[in-house]
Structures are given as C-alpha cells and as structure tokens.
C-alpha cells in the first residue's frame, strides 16, 4: 500500500475510536511535556551559567601571576619549576612580553584597592577596580544604565548596582551625572638614602592620603572579568586613571622587601585573548615563559560535563512518563486488534500482505506519537513559560533581576517529537506484529 493511502487509512482508523485514541495521544503528550519541561530546566540553567560566565568576560581571559605566589596559593607545597623556565617577576617587562604574544588582544594589570568614597557628605567604604578599555564590549556592560567611560583617562566612575543602592537606595539610577570624592592612599617612592639604609641598597615609599573627584557615568550589574567574592570591584574607574593614582595595593609590602623595591611589580595581569579557542595555546606559552597562568576554560569544561549528567538524569526522569504513556499505546492498539479483527481478515482477503497490516498499525502508532509529540512540546513549552514567569515573580519580590531558568531551544522541539514517534513505534511493535500474524480465516470468522 502506498504511504498516502496508509496515512489515510490510519487517520480514518484513529478517528473511529476518537475518545480512546485522543486519551492515549494525550498520555503521550503529557509524557513528552514532562520530558521537555525537565530538559528545558537543565538547558535553561546551563544557558544561565554559561551566559553569566560569558558576560563576565572570563572565557577569553587568562589570569597571570608570578609563579611563586601562585604555587603557594591555598597553602599548597611548592611545586618544582620546570628546568627550562625559571620563575619570572611580573613587572612592566613581563607585561610587554605578554602583550607581544600572538592572539593576545590586551594585557592589563589587576588594579584594585579598598578605599572610601564620599557622597552627599557621607563616607562609604568600597573596593575600587581599574577597568581596561578592551572590556567595553563585554556582556557585563550590555545592560548598563548610563554609558561607558568617555575616554581612557576620563575622571569618571561606573558603580556596581548593589553599591549604587547603598548610595541611593530608592533610585540608584539618579546617581548618573552626580559627583563623588574618591579618597585613597597614594604610594610615593622614597630615595634610598632617605630610607636610612643606603648600604643595604634598600629603598622605601611613603603613603600619602589623596582625593579625586569622579563623575558617575554608569551603573552596572557586575564587574566584568571578576570572579567575585570580597575583592570584587564596586566602583569602576578607567584603568589608566587607576594606574596614575598609584594607589597603595596589597603587594606593595612585598615589593618593599625585594632587592629592587623601586621596580614595581604586579600582583596579577589579565591577558585577554582574541577568542576562547586560543586560550589554551596562549596559556601554555605563558607558563613556558615562567609565569603561573589560570583560565576558566577548564572550569567551564567541567561545568559542561556536570550539566550533561544533569540533563541526562532529568531526561531519564522525564522519559519515565513517556514510557508509561507508551504502555497506553500498546493497550490501545491491542484493543484495536480485537475490535478490528474481522476488518484485518477482510483486508487480507482483499490482497493485503502481512507487512501492509503491520505498516498500518505502525502508522497509527506513529501518528499518535507525532500528535502526542506536538501537543507535548506545546504543553512543555507552556510549562517552561510558567516556570520562568513564577521565577521572575519570586525574584522580583526579592528585588532581584529576572532570569530565565528554563529554555526550550529548537533542537529540543525536534528531538522531543522524534523521540515521541520513536517510542510510539517501539510500543507499536508488539501490536503490529500480532495484527500481521492474524490468520485471515480465523479473523473472518470473528463476530
């Protein structure tokens, strides 16, 4: 029998027991909806995590530190350095060397220091961070209120939203255009003789309190490129401005103990690579130059594995409902065989081969799977919308920005419908074979 005739007959048969077949199809729909809803949650959460990481600009960034400090990080035992690459100081020379590496877009120091600002006569302790111009295109600035710095040396500031709320709890956006006074400790180098220990060749620096007026130009949700925690910058200023401030930082005390204290070193440098795919290669090169390097690429890979397992588990739980629904198909089709026994006999008497009868039942199962799959995807999509709506309502009550925790991408629509048809066909194997094997003489005798 031709496919079109097969479809026509199958549709006619399904219409015949409309209520029963509709309920079976609805059962498949609910199964598919459960699968789609579960997977949408897994995909949504994965998207959320990936998006947050991408927006932070961490994926194409490598964090470089002097090897010794990195090796001792977290109290680990010092690892032996490779013989071909001795540990190098992270100074201005190193910065130029790293900037000259292929596929490197920008190299900038991580300048951040705890300080205090004054606004409307009140002091507010905070952490200042220098922002490189190359971070301007990071996702973190996409939803920014206001504008990015007008120039690399502009006396402007961008506030992190939580800090802005501290300054103006009711209307943080009203801070745009306002002035704040930044109070900070400037490091001023002293000549060696003034340190009183010329013989030892040591030098020192003094700390001088300074003030700088800054105009607020933007309010941003999070600092780009920051991993988070207590060191996260709440007040962002152009990197060039941050460097000219020569504000005292935590590694200044260490510099003081060096043989050449006048030669300033960086606590860490951020190397921005052209694309995430080049991160691994550049990271290896940096390590070979004698620095410690760390990127979030490995962490993101682990994250992908975790989410793959998470999706698998959600998929398995979601599929359970579909498996139960598939038993409904078996039941419906077996009932159909009993009811249409004589009809099967007539079809065989009129020239239907066993495979025609088998294909007819398979087609009926597939049609139920297709319709169930489509209705299930629709229902699953509605559940996804409901989850996102409920989450948004909850978050807005907590005064937090809305996020999308569930997502139904196009591939999931296609996969869910295909899976529904496949499960329905699998469920149709037994009834279809049983119908095909019916003895026509016995079937024609059936009353």
């Amino acid at each position, binding site marked *: *029998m*031709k496919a079109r*005739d097969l479809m026509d*007959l199958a549709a*006619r048969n399904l219409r*015949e027991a409309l209520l029963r077949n509709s309920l079976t199809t609805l059962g498949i729909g609910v199964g598919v909806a459960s699968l789609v809803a579960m997977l949408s949650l897994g995909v949504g959460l994965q998207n959320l995590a990936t998006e947050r990481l991408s927006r932070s600009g961490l994926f194409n960034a490598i964090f470089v530190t002097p090897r010794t400090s990195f090796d001792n990080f977290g109290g680990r035992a010092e690892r032996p350095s490779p013989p071909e690459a001795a540990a190098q100081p992270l100074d201005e020379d190193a910065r130029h060397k790293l900037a000259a590496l292929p596929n490197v877009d920008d190299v900038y120091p991580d300048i951040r220091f705890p300080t205090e600002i004054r606004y409307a006569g009140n002091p507010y302790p905070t952490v200042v961070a220098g922002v490189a111009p190359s971070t301007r295109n990071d996702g973190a600035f996409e939803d920014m209120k206001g504008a990015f710095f007008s120039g690399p040396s502009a006396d402007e500031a961008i506030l992190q939203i939580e800090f802005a709320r501290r300054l103006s709890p009711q209307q943080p956006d009203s801070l745009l255009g306002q002035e704040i006074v930044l109070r900070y400790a400037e490091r001023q180098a002293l000549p060696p003789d003034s340190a009183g220990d010329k013989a030892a060749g040591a030098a020192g620096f003094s700390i001088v309190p300074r003030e700088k007026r800054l105009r607020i130009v933007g309010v941003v949700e999070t600092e780009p490129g920051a991993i988070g925690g207590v060191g996260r910058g709440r007040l962002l200023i152009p990197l060039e401005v941050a460097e000219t401030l020569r504000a005292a930082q935590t590694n200044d005390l260490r510099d003081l103990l060096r043989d050449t204290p006048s030669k300033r070193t960086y606590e860490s440098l951020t190397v921005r690579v052209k694309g995430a795919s080049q991160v691994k290669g550049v990271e290896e090169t940096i390590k070979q130059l004698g620095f410690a390097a760390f990127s979030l690429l490995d962490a993101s890979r682990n994250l992908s594995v975790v989410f793959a397992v998470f999706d698998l588990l959600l998929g398995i739980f979601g599929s359970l409902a579909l498996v139960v629904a598939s038993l409904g198909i078996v039941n419906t089709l077996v009932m159909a065989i009993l009811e249409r026994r*004589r*009809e099967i*006999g*007539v*079809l*065989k*008497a*009129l*020239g*239907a*081969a*066993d*495979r*025609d009868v088998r294909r007819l039942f398979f087609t009926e199962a597939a049609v139920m799977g297709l319709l169930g799959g489509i209705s299930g995807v629709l229902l699953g999509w509605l559940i996804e919308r409901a989850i996102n709506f409920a989450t948004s309502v909850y978050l807005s009550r907590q005064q937090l920005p809305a996020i999308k925790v569930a997502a139904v991408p196009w591939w999931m629509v296609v996969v869910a419908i295909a899976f529904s048809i496949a499960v329905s066909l699998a469920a149709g194997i037994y009834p279809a074979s049983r119908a095909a094997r019916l003895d*026509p*003489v016995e079937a*024609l005798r059936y009353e």
Partner: protein
Amino acid sequence: MTSANIGNPGNGRIAIRTDHLARHYQMGSTLVHAVNDVTLSIPAGEFVALLGSSGSGKSTLLNLMAGLDRPSSGAIFAHERNLAEMSSDELAKHRGHTIGIVFQAFNLLPRMTLEENVELPLRLAEVERNERTARVREAAERVRLTARLTHRPGELSGGEQQRAALARALVNRPTILLADEPTGNLDSATGDEIMLLLREINETLGMTIIMVTHERHRAERFAHRLILMGDGKILSDGGRA
C-alpha cells in the same frame, strides 16, 4: 469491463486444479479432516457450485482456493501456479489480483462509503489514484449501484450491500470469483438478483465462478457444475441434474 480485461478465460485452460488436496487441523484431541484427498479440476470460465451440509469442507476448500489457508498436504494450482509453494506475500498478491471474494456476511467496512469500500482492493494493489475512480465506477455500473456510491453500508439493504461486495470483488479484474454463501443472508428475491448478476458476470466476462452454497435449487438453476462434498471428500461431481 470486457472479457479482455480479465485474462483469457474459457479457452480450455484450467483455472483451479487440486491434487490429493488435504487440510487437517487439530481440535482438542481430535484430528479433523476438513478437506480430505480432494482432486478436481475447474476449467476457466466455468460456474461451479460447491454443495454440502455444514462441516462438509466446502468453505475450507474455498479458503484454500483463495489462498487464505494453506493445505496440510497435496497441491492446489491457480492458473498452474501451486499455491502451496507460495510465500505469504505471493499469496497476498494472488488474493489481490487473481481472486475476487464475496462473503455471506458481505464484510463491507461500515465506516467507509461504498465507493471507498470498492476502492479498497485498488489501494492495496497500489493502483494509481486517477485510475481508481474510473475502475470503481466501472465495477459499480456492472452491479448497477452507481447511485449509492456515497452511502455507507448501514444505509443500504442486504441486496445492495452484497452487490457492493460483488463490485469490490470485481474491481481488480480477477480471473476467478469465489463466493461463500453469497445469498445466505438474503431473502429469496434478492438472492435471485445476486445469482442473476453472478451468471451475467460469468457469461459476459467469462469469469470462473466457484460458489459455496447449501441451496441446491439455486445451484442447479445457475451453475454449470455441481460438486457435492461430505466429510471433506467429493461425493459427486457433475453437471446440473
């Protein structure tokens, strides 16, 4: 429909031939010999009536000729092709192309219109859609049922339903028509109408007709040859009395 459409019947060729044909089946501890060592030959174009009481084996023999059942032993040939050696698919083709079957209970599919019922064998035989309409109309005209094509079986009388079943049996232009008690569910007058139609088909198309019946008077009136069966065997085989 012309005789040219249904092959070349009535030219001395054999339509159906059996050779020591037997069909046994187990019923509990008893082995039933439904058809027992039957040897016969039916020339193309003949109108044969298989007579006998219930359980005589006539319907089983008809099912074997239709390829709906397989023999336990012996051979059965349709146009010299041994049905006993055919695969399941080949038997399906035999039923779809060589044989047309009419049942006592009509066996029309109730949810389809007459047109769709008659068209069903054409769908199974994968006849092109545009050719089907003409073939259905041709078969309906043959049984004089064109006015009722859009009706469903439940809206028709018994005689009309059997005529529709006859049109369905003819639509694939078979060479052999098998009829299992075609008048069994009809009143006398309507039964006669059907028998007249069968004779007309036999005479005008030269189609071989093998009809199972227990109505001897009708068999004697319309068939060329009467085969009487009992206990699975042929008790007598001859022309009209």
